[in-house]
């Protein structure tokens, strides 16, 4: 049983304890959570992967996975979310990255000082061994006054003790300095955690209780005192460091330096292009879409239908250049079942040759579901044999990037450029995730520091970033249209990104924060995690997309059958033919585009367009309204007003810019 979001299921199970995993970003909380729950929440090698709380039931407990934080306070949204659940927790498992003891123990000490029942997990024990660092966990346990366990979430080592870890949690050693500071607590009706946070000037709580009990100085004093204690503890428990030079992965260093970093970036992009642009989108998809999807699956579905239903079958035999060299056309007015000999003969005549089969049905309903653009047959081929292989490969590449630790370095590399756009380098992370799924990436903008940065990043995502599904279709169309079209498309989209964010930077109020980002160690991605993540994302995508695509094609099918489509086509005609200079039928693509952007691009497949028309229509569709799912998420994250403004803006924006490009090119 798992629960997303902040709603706390404990109300219905009052006897269950709340066990909360708390730790610095990227220490391995989610991997531990997956271990305990048998579930999968996302695990990636960059700080800020988890942005909301996930809960699962484990024996008599509810276990909570939380966003990583460096301390309990309310500097950003993730901290606020995590702080809320910490205040309500019965037991805290403080997850510590054993390699960064000095950074991480700050939070552990704060949790202990808050008077919480705590158990400490020293995670990444496998890496500790690799780098020959020794930590005396018994001594650490003595100094903290709570139990310390060592684990490796990667291998599962130590996690078999999870019951003991939870059960042995207790209140730790209270520091004299803090006790002195909180001695006036008896004058207030507050628990120790809340009181300490008020003393530390937590703005949320100060507002909530309307109570200011300290000044800036006290907060700073407490922080510095805590830091000094951490230092003493680390000195006492950790044995001498290995030389720094050996420690860090050299690749990580090289990825940062502009001289080597930019060639590395170009190299990575080139590899991605070879993999997705060349191998998957041309060779693999050609095979799955045509050889499997059309010629085996679709063919057999249609053949099956034709057994019982009158049909006309047309088979084109093709030569190696896909030219039609022979056409066979037969009618089966009573279905194949009555004339199976005739059909067998056709099959023997065409077997082993490259062919293209068309089944036509008299019955409009059958035609609607199984005909040339039949809802069922097209949905199957498009979703499973065109999109699916592309989606899987996009997700594989993304997971690889996420797990390598490269993204935070890229963030540092582009930081300066991004500050010109009103963002800081960190924003590259949600933007890159947007190439996988804009919806997911919109949620990830929570990792950015201020409202302003979140708004700008959300707008860029919703306006310009094509998600993997759309990118997949775009790649296919662009490869067909040639290099010139591809270059024009990329340059146009980049120009638009820069333009939009420059404008947003001027009009969105507030100030952006400078970058503070800790860089995790680079590591070779774990194949198991890459595959699991890709699997869960792909399944999620197919679950979302299949019914929507079905509905979309049905709507268009119905509009076509009833003739209503012509009203829409005529209504949009001034825009499609005059502004964009496209065939007026392209209006149909925009209906599909409102449901999902990739469907919009897919609607262009069957039109004969010149290469410039391809570019214009793709740019317009890219800029056009986001898919329903990400529209809803955007409303939730950014509110009705900003959400609707961005949505409406995309209409004007897409047609205006598409029009300008069209008139430049044609």
């Amino acid at each position, binding site marked *: 049983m798992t629960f997303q979001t902040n709603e706390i299921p404990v109300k219905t199970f009052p006897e269950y304890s709340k066990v909360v995993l708390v730790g610095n970003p990227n220490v391995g909380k989610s991997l531990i959570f997956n271990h305990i729950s048998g579930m999968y929440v996302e695990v990636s090698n960059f700080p800020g992967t988890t942005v909301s709380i996930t809960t699962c039931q484990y024996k008599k407990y509810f276990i909570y996975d939380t966003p990583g934080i460096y*301390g309990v306070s309310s*500097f950003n949204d993730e901290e606020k979310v995590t702080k809320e659940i910490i205040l309500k927790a019965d037991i805290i498992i403080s997850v510590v990255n054993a390699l*960064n003891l*000095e*950074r991480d123990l700050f939070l552990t000490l704060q949790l202990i000082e808050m008077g919480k029942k705590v158990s400490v997990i020293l995670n990444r024990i496998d890496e500790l061994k690799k780098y020959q660092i020794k930590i005396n966990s018994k001594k650490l346990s003595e100094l903290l006054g709570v139990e310390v366990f060592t684990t490796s979430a990667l291998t599962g080592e130590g996690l078999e003790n999870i019951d003991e870890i939870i059960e042995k949690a207790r209140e730790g050693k209270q520091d004299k300095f803090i006790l002195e500071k909180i001695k006036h607590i008896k004058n207030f009706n507050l628990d120790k955690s809340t009181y300490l946070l008020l003393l530390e000037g937590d703005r949320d709580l100060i507002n909530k209780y309307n109570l200011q009990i300290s000044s800036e100085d006290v907060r700073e004093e407490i922080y510095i005192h805590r*830091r000094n204690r951490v230092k003493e503890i680390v000195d006492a428990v950790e044995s001498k460091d290995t030389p720094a030079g050996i420690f860090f992965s050299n690749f990580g260093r090289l990825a940062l330096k502009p001289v080597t970093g930019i060639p590395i970036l170009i190299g990575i992009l080139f590899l991605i292009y070879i993999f997705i642009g060349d191998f998957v989108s041309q060779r693999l998809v050609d095979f799955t879409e045509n050889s499997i999807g059309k010629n085996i699956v679709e063919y057999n579905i249609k053949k099956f239908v034709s057994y019982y239903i009158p049909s006309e079958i047309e088979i084109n035999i093709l030569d190696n250049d896909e030219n039609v060299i022979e056409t066979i056309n037969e009618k089966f007015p009573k279905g194949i079942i009555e004339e199976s000999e005739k059909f067998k003969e056709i099959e023997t005549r065409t077997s082993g040759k490259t062919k293209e089969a068309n089944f036509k049905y008299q019955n409009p309903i059958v035609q609607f579901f199984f005909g040339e653009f039949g809802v069922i047959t097209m949905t199957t081929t498009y979703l499973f044999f065109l999109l699916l292989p592309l989606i899987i490969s996009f997700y594989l590449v993304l997971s690889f990037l996420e797990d390598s630790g490269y993204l935070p370095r890229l963030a540092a590399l582009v*930081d300066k450029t991004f500050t010109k756009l009103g963002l800081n380098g960190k924003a590259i992370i949600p933007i890159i995730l947007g190439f996988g799924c804009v919806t997911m990436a919109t949620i990830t903008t929570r990792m950015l520091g201020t409202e302003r940065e979140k708004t700008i990043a959300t707008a860029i995502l919703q306006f310009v970033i094509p998600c993997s599904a759309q990118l997949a279709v775009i790649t296919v169309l662009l490869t067909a249209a040639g290099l010139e079209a591809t270059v024009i498309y990329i340059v146009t989209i980049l120009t638009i990104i820069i333009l939009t964010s420059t404008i947003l930077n001027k009009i969105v109020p507030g100030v952006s924060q400078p970058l503070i980002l*800790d860089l995790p160690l680079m590591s070779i991605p774990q194949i198991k995690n890459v595959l699991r993540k890709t699997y869960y994302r792909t399944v999620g995508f197919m679950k979302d997309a299949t019914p929507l695509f079905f509905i979309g094609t049905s709507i268009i099918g119905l509009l076509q059958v009833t003739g209503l489509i012509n009203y829409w086509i005529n209504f949009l005609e001034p825009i499609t033919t005059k502004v964009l200079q496209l065939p007026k039928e392209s209006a149909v693509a925009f209906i599909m585009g409102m449901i999902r952007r990739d469907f919009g691009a897919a609607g262009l497949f069957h039109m004969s367009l010149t290469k410039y028309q391809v570019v214009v229509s793709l740019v317009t569709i890219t800029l056009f309204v986001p898919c329903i799912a990400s529209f809803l998420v955007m409303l939730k994250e950014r509110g009705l007003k900003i959400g609707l403004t961005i949505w409406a803006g995309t209409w004007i924006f897409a047609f205006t810019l598409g029009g300008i490009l069209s008139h430049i090119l044609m």
Partner: protein
Amino acid sequence: MGKINIMKFTLNKAKRGQQLLVQQLPEGDYKLQLIRFGILEGETITCLDKIFGGTIIIQKNRLEIALGNDLARQIIVSSLN
């Protein structure tokens, strides 16, 4: 012997590989955020790298942290080598 005059400068002016002593942090939230990372007045850090446009990568023990130019300009340090 007279007083030794320490040269103080802002972090964005540090050189690659330079060992630095943190002299002064900006007031307010950034200060607290830096303290949580273990960067406080009197601590030693290393300038690992400078990226064009002035984003600074510093190292403290086994931590590597990227700091934006706007923040680096508000941190005062002195050289240790």
